[in-house]
Every structure is written in C-alpha cells, then in structure tokens.
C-alpha cells in the first residue's frame, strides 16, 4: 500500500516542457553577446562600463520595485538583464553613466513594473527609456564616437543615415564597414553581422518566430527599394543603418509587446516597417525604428482584437451578426 499523503495530486497535464522563462531569457542574453563583443572591439572598454551600469541598475530596480510593491521577487527570470542589455545597446558609448542608470531605472520601474511586471507592460521598456533619454538629454544621446578610435583620442563622427540625410558631409563608410559595424551609432546596433548571428540563434532556439523580423525588414526593404529608385546601394545602407536589425530581431519581438498569433505578428512587423520608412523618409529623424516599434506596441491590443483567431470549427458568423445590428 502506498501512503496517500506522500503522493502529489495536481491537475493534468502531468508532463511539462523543460523550458522555463529563465532559459528563454538566457537565450536572449546569449544571442546578444556577439553584438556586445563587437561593440567592445569597435568602441572600447567603455562599452562594458555602460552595459554594466544599465544591467546592474535594471536588476536592482526590479528587485527594489518588487519589494516595495510587495510582490514576489522576479530578478532570477533574467528579464531585467535583457532589458538592461538592450537599453545599453541603444545608447551612444560616450553617454554619462548616470544618464544610463536613470534610463535603466525608468525602463524597469515606470514602464515595466508599474504596469504589473513581465508580460503586462504594453510598451517595450528599453525603447521608452531610450526615447525619454533622447528627449531629456538630446545632446549626450546624439554624440557619436568614431569606431576604432578609442585607443587614441576619441573622435566624434556622424551616423551613416545622417550622412545620407545630408546632415553631415563626412564620407560614408563602405558597405563592408557597415556590415562589420565600423561606423558611428549606438553601442549595439552597428555590427550587422553580430546581430544577424544573434537573430538566427534565437530563431533556431525557437525563442522568436521569424515572422516579425522578416515582415519588418522586408517591408523596409521594399519601400526603400522604391523610394531609392531601385538603387541597391542605398537600400543596403538603409537596411544596415540605424537600429533596424537590432530593433527587428531583439526589440520588436519582445513577447509582452508584440502579438501572439502569427498573422497578427505579420501585420505588426509590416506596421513597424512602414512607420520606420515614413519616419526616415519624411520626418527629420533619421532613426525611425524606436518610434515605429513604440507606436506599434501601442496598437498591439487592437491588432489582436481585429485579427483574433477563429476557434476550431467556428464558421464565419460575421454576416449574420452585421444583419442583426441593422
């Protein structure tokens, strides 16, 4: 006979996947590491100081916020680490560390925890923090250090998209330099190679689906191809410039702030791409990615309602319903 008290009684199913939130977030961290290494090579050891600042601030803020709100501690799920990393990737290397810390605190406390923590926030914390920093400290946020100049005296430079936009007369970096990340820009956005490697890793591990990045980048490609009158070189600069790859692979795919179902994901990705192009082409801001993702974040609940999937076997009822309404 078996002593019934020792048996675990729980609701079905009795098998569970071995995946955990922590493992998923760890995968995201792993996927970001190539870009981090590239950034250290390109922009010097200060990259590590900025990254450490945002990551540590993010984790401490999460810990403190959960304590104050009397909720269970969540720092072990690593999502705060991811937010810290992504925020650092969206900052120029020369940013004063205290500004980076403020951004990180803001991302975690105001954008994430005040809306209920992981899975509940409607806007991407790192993006909102970046935009807040941009609006408050425009000067420091627009101070681009030339790549590979950190061993000598830091030289400032302009970003490729600003050069294309005619705001600077500097020479454009070559396409190979663009691919390797040897250009002005935020810490983690310049090395296309590293970002693509990270993105492929995430897709291979099934952490993200290909739908959002492909729809996003594809839309930008099509529009820029037409806008550039089929100039492939222009297209390549647009695709590798700004934060497009970082945004498409790592920020637009954030679970909390993107749709769940595949068709809604495609709509979301296309929307991000469209807005990015509109901002890049018509507004004075050359880097439209953050704003585009933010706007689409806010639209996610609407996209999901409109595109709600039909439960199995449901026949289309729309017509009868409209009929009733009349």
């Amino acid at each position, binding site marked *: 006979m078996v002593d019934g008290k020792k048996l675990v009684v729980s609701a079905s199913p009795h098998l569970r996947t071995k995946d955990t939130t922590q493992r998923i977030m760890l995968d995201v961290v792993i996927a970001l590491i190539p870009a981090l290494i590239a950034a250290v090579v390109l922009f010097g050891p200060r990259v590590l100081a900025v990254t450490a600042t945002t990551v540590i601030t993010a984790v401490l803020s999460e810990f403190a916020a959960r304590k104050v709100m009397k909720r269970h501690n969540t720092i072990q799920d690593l999502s705060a680490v991811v937010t810290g990393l992504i925020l650092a990737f969206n900052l120029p290397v020369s940013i004063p560390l205290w500004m980076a810390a403020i951004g990180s605190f803001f991302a975690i406390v105001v954008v994430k925890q005040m809306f209920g923590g992981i899975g509940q926030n409607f806007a991407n914390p790192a993006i909102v923090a970046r935009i807040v920093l941009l609006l408050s400290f425009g000067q420091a946020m627009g101070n681009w250090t030339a790549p590979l100049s950190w061993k000598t005296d830091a030289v400032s430079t302009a970003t490729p998209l600003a050069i294309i936009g005619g705001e600077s007369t500097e020479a454009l970096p070559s396409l190979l330099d663009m691919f390797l990340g040897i250009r002005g820009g935020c810490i983690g956005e310049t090395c296309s190679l590293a970002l693509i490697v990270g993105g492929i890793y995430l897709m291979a591990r099934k952490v993200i689906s290909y739908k959002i990045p492909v729809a996003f980048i594809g839309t930008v490609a099509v529009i820029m191809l037409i806008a550039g009158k089929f100039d492939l070189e222009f297209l390549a600069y647009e695709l590798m410039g700004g934060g497009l790859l970082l945004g498409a692979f790592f920020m637009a795919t954030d679970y909390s702030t993107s749709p*769940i179902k595949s068709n809604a994901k495609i709509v979301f990705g296309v929307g991000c791409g469209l807005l990015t192009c509109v901002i890049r082409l018509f507004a004075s801001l050359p880097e439209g990615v953050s704003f585009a993702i933010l706007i689409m974040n806010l639209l996610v609940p609407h996209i999901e309602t409109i595109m709600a999937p039909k439960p199995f076997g449901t026949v289309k009822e729309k017509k009868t319903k409209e009929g009733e309404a009349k």
Partner: protein
Amino acid sequence: MGDVKLPNGVMSKAVTIESDGEMRLWEGIEPPKVETKEDFIKAVRASGLVGLGGAGFPTHIKLNFPADKNIDTLIINAAECEPYITVDYRECMENSWDILSSVYTLKDILGFKRVVIAAEDNKPEAFKVLKNIADHKDDVDDEVQLMILESKYPQGAEKMMVQSATGRRVPPGKLPADVGCVVLNVTSAAFIARYLKTGKPLVSRSLTVDGSAIANPKNVRVPIGTNISDIIDFCGGFKTEPCKILTGGPMMGLAIVGTDLPVLKQNNAILAFSKDDAVLKPETDCIRCGRCAIACPMSLMPTNIVRAAKAKDPEALKQLGITVCMECGSCAFACPAGKPLVQHMRLAKAILREEGNK
C-alpha cells in the same frame, strides 16, 4: 454490497466479488442474436461497452444515431490517445481478426459508406496489420481505407481525428455525428466483434502500467474493478518511491491519492512517477510568449482566456471560444512559465456556466 471510493474521489455503491480462482465462464453466456440494427444496438448496450480510449462514453449511444443524421463515415481510431499508453497498439497486433470482423459488421449493419482506419506513423507494425484489414478481399469497392497520421498529441482526440480523416471540422459544441462521422476506438471495435462471437460482456480490459517508479512496466489484462495496488504488485511493485500515481495518460489522466482504488472500464493506463518526474516546476508570471496558443489544437489563445477569466468577463470568454477547449493539456505542457492552464480553462468554463445559470 458496499461503498467504494472511485479514483476521482466519489463514493459509489459496488458489489465485491470474491474470486473462486478458476475464472470459468458462466454456462449461461451465449452469443447475442443480431439481425437488425436494433438488435445490434441492444447487444452493444448489454455488453456494457464504453469508449475504451479513455472518455468512457457509452458506445451504444454513440452508435445509435438517428437515420436522418446522414452519418456516412466510420473512423476507427487506432492512434494512441496519449503518450506512454500502448494498449491500442497491442490490440492491433494481437486481435487483428476481431478488428477486421468488427469493421465489416459495423459497416454492414449501420450502413457506413466509408470506413477510415486511422493509425499513427510511429507504429509501422500496427500499420501493416491494419493495412491487411483495409485491403481485405471482402472490401470490393475499396470503402475501407487506412490513413496514416503524424504521431502528435492530441491526434487521438475525436475532433482532430474527424478533421484528419475527412477534412470536416466539428463546430464548437457539436459532436462528430453532426458532420456525419462516428469515431470508435480500435479496442472498443475489437471488443464488439468478440462480444458478438462469445457473448462475454466487458468484464476485463487491458491497460498500460508504466512510469519511472514501476519496476516492470508492461501491458496487462485485468478484470474491471481490480484493485490498483494489486496490479502494481503484479508488475513488480515500485522500484523507487512513487511521488505521483495516475489513472490514465500523463496529459489528461487523474492523479490519485492512493492505490486502494478499483480499475474502471475507461482506465487505459496506470502510471507511477518518481520524484524527479512528478514535481512540476514552479509557476512564474506569464511572459506572453504565445507558446500556449501555438500548442493549442483548437486554435485558442489560452493566455487571453486566463486574462478574461480573471476579469470574470463571460462575454470575452465566449468570444475567445473557451467552450471548444477539450482540456487536452497541450497549452500547459508548452508553457515555460509553468502555468496550470488547464485549471484556468476549467475555471473559465465554470464562469461561463454560472453566467448561463443566471
């Protein structure tokens, strides 16, 4: 006569039968006379047959569909309903004659135009056996067909089966019969043939005994009502201390509180797990990863249903289609945050039911 506790915790009246150790058939048992459809249904009813795949739905009700329903397809479900369980596979291997005879009897008596035998692609031997049945010489117009399905939980679920076999989708709240299909588990089908031949009612069944805590996992045939602890002893007892014991499969089975319980007709497995397999990971916050929605065979969005249920919003629940949820557990299996989603689904259904009662 006395009270017996059933695995789901309910007390029930039961007769305790003392065995004389001989296991002879009673002389009065004889094959039923079956000439018409009515005779047949009566016979099935008298046999006490229920869906042996796990649902336990009385078979005579399933087969006694009104003529105006236009039922044209019989689906013989040989896809195992859950991981671990192999009784249907053994049935195919050992009792193929019964399956064959049952298929043709059912077809003739109930007038099905088409019979589809559905098997999973990971059971090549069973496939061969079933292929012989489908290609039998009596089947002149090739009305009996074999269909191979990808082996993927919950392939054995009726609605999934109907869709795979006929392309028809059973609407929410309806039964396979509403789209012209009847789904019958192979083991149940084989039993019908045996009953028609011998008249021996459903007094025993086969079940899988498995799991990391069982010393000698095997399939056994036991009289219904056998005490679960006797069955486990027969399989060598426990090799490690069991931490969780289930009747039924790992996805939809019931965790039981002890082993002093009887086997019921619809129990297709007894699984016992040691500590490593039984302890579920801790529940964390939903991260909206969407894996539950990808996993759901019914195209539901479990995470949104949880939200609507928390908000006690019956309108939203209806919109989200909670009623089609078959509690298969796929969503909860896939959830990295360890959410007990099936429990949430049951809760959501309860909210809707309450609303309906108002």
